[in-house]
């Protein structure tokens, strides 16, 4: 540990008042950067979801590494999407000793209300490389319709 002499100066006891200002500014920058990226709070429910849309579909995505597709259950009810499942981590024999154990097992269940009406019969879901994608075709009445202007 370095011992620094305590030197009271013009700005109180700070060694360098500008260093302190720089530190504050850096912290503010970091804070703003996170905000600007537009990360919504997850409401604390697993899994974290990304929702996007194009002209025809809504897409709900979640990262579920190590969850086998058979363990995921997707249901739609009214205009809600329910994602339910379990992540299992198999035990690796009794003779092993762990250095790190950061991956967690457990069950999850999340309900999302969808922003537009969807065609519940045509919802499809794929889980590939640990990423779940639910494709929800928008209901016909919500799609933008182009109206042709006829010449007389």
């Amino acid at each position, binding site marked *: 540990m370095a011992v620094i002499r305590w030197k009271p100066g013009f700005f109180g006891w700070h060694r360098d008042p500008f260093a302190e200002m720089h530190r504050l500014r850096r912290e503010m920058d970091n804070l703003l950067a996170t905000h600007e*990226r537009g990360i919504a709070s997850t409401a604390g429910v697993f899994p*974290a979801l*990304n929702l996007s849309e194009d002209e025809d579909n809504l897409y709900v995505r979640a990262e579920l590494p190590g969850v086998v597709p058979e363990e995921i259950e997707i249901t739609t009810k009214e205009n809600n999407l329910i994602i339910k499942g379990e992540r299992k981590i198999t035990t690796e024999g009794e003779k092993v*000793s762990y250095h790190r154990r950061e991956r967690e097992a457990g069950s999850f269940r999340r309900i999302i209300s969808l922003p537009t009406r969807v065609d519940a019969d045509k919802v499809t879901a794929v889980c590939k490389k640990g990423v779940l994608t639910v494709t929800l075709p928008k209901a016909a009445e919500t799609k933008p319709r182009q109206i042709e202007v006829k010449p007389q």
Partner: protein
Amino acid sequence: MVPEEVITMADKELQVREKRELQADAEQTRSGLVFTPAVDIFESEEEITLLADMPGVPSDGVTIDLQNDELKVAGEVEPQGSENETSLVREYETGRFHRHFSLSDRIDQSRISASMKDGVLRLVLPKVEKAKPRKIEVKAE
């Protein structure tokens, strides 16, 4: 009395854990976010096994680099979704994965095996066989 269902339902519920962004342990020369994957590391007498959560990484996107005792694991992700999608809600971000470890045991480089399944990397690092103490029998004449 506690109803039986409550007891059987007592399994753990998963909590959201924010993806950890890599705190520059090496300067990045490319743009984009980098995350550190969650890992399990365990050891048996013969080998060290590492499991890393890397969702969205295809098997050819994994790079494993072992030099001396330094192990580096990296994963390139495929983009999620197409470009003409508009994002409505974003609760997580995507980016490549990177993490490095230092190993205490000697690893037999030629026998390292790695596989990717459902977004989880399984890396098996066999230890170099050490000179085992051999018991020498003293024969009676």
